[in-house]
């Protein structure tokens, strides 16, 4: 199979769920789409497949997301130095516009974002059915430790979510 053919096969198998992973992590559908496109374009241009293409794609997408977030933090710091009146803020969402669905999403998002980055990634990736081996390679963990880290991440998420629900 040609390189393009092999990348195409990987695309068919992984693009959609990787896009979902990145959307859950970022909360931004368009950003998730861009990150996954960039990861696949890099794989396409690479000329050959890495040893573990699935883990490679996850790792590249997560790194791109990290860079994007770092860039945004920098921009935010720069904008914070500019007088506030120069910006026009977006209108606030209409109360109750998205109803319960919006509330639940906000709660899950809050709980997820309170976890360390690695725990967020483990939770979201494992929810998409990625195996321990791929998680270990992509997140640079020992395969034997993935189960332990994942159990802790689930417990933390549960505590955060329930705490958030109780508090709301």
């Amino acid at each position: 199979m040609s390189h393009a053919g092999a990348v195409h096969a990987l695309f068919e198998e992984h693009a959609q769920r990787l896009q979902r992973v990145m959307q859950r992590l970022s909360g931004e559908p368009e950003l998730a789409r861009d990150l996954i496109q960039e990861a696949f374009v890099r794989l396409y241009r690479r000329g050959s497949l890495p040893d573990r293409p699935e883990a490679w794609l996850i790792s590249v997408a997560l790194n791109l997301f990290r860079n994007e977030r770092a860039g945004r933090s920098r921009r935010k710091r720069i904008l914070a130095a500019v007088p506030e009146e120069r910006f026009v803020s977006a209108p606030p969402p209409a109360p109750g516009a998205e109803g319960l669905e919006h509330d639940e999403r906000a709660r899950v998002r809050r709980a997820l974002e309170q976890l360390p980055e690695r725990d967020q990634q483990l939770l979201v990736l494992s929810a998409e059915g990625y195996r321990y081996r791929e998680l270990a390679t992509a997140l640079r963990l020992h395969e034997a430790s993935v189960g332990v880290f994942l159990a802790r991440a689930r417990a933390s998420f549960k505590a955060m979510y329930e705490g958030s629900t109780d508090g709301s």
Partner: protein
Amino acid sequence: MAPDDDESRLLGRLSALDRPTRPLRWTEVVAEGERRRRAGWRPVAMVAAALVCVSVLGYAAAGFRPVRQLARSIAASLGAASSHDASPHAPAAPADSAGIRVPVEDRFVIAFTAPAPGASARVRITAGEQLEVSTPDPRVTFNSQPHALRIDAHGAPAGFEIRVPDQAPWIEIQVAGRTVFRKRGSGVVLATRAPDGSWPVSLAAP
């Protein structure tokens, strides 16, 4: 609560984060990959075009002279000194003096013509593969041939520094046809070694 329940609840909760998205299409990936591939060639193509232009200009500036001179013209038009001289016999001294450097492989004769009575040379055996002759007198001219180097001092009482490679099998210095120094293998004859390790040689014509 059983772990499986936890797992399914977690999955359910995470799915609350899902929002409608435009699915990414394979054709978009290929189009972007190919666009970057073409963009990646652009700088290379520009450098290649620039090199062709410089070569053409250099060739025009050289007035279609031979290739060796063309190389010099291009180097000059780039404003950079060539890393090595196109001539096999490179000058060994700055402009206010004179000198030459030549490779020596077999029997080799250094022949002085028309030296002044006070002319002299100091010969040193050095590591390396090239013979070097230098003098502070810029009037001296050199004429190198396959197995000989003719040096014309034009009657000037010039002093010469001659560096003979220790690997040279046979080198002779002649003044107006008379041999005043000879190195054969590692031995030197017809000259006396000075305390500083050099061999002073008189270049006065007989």
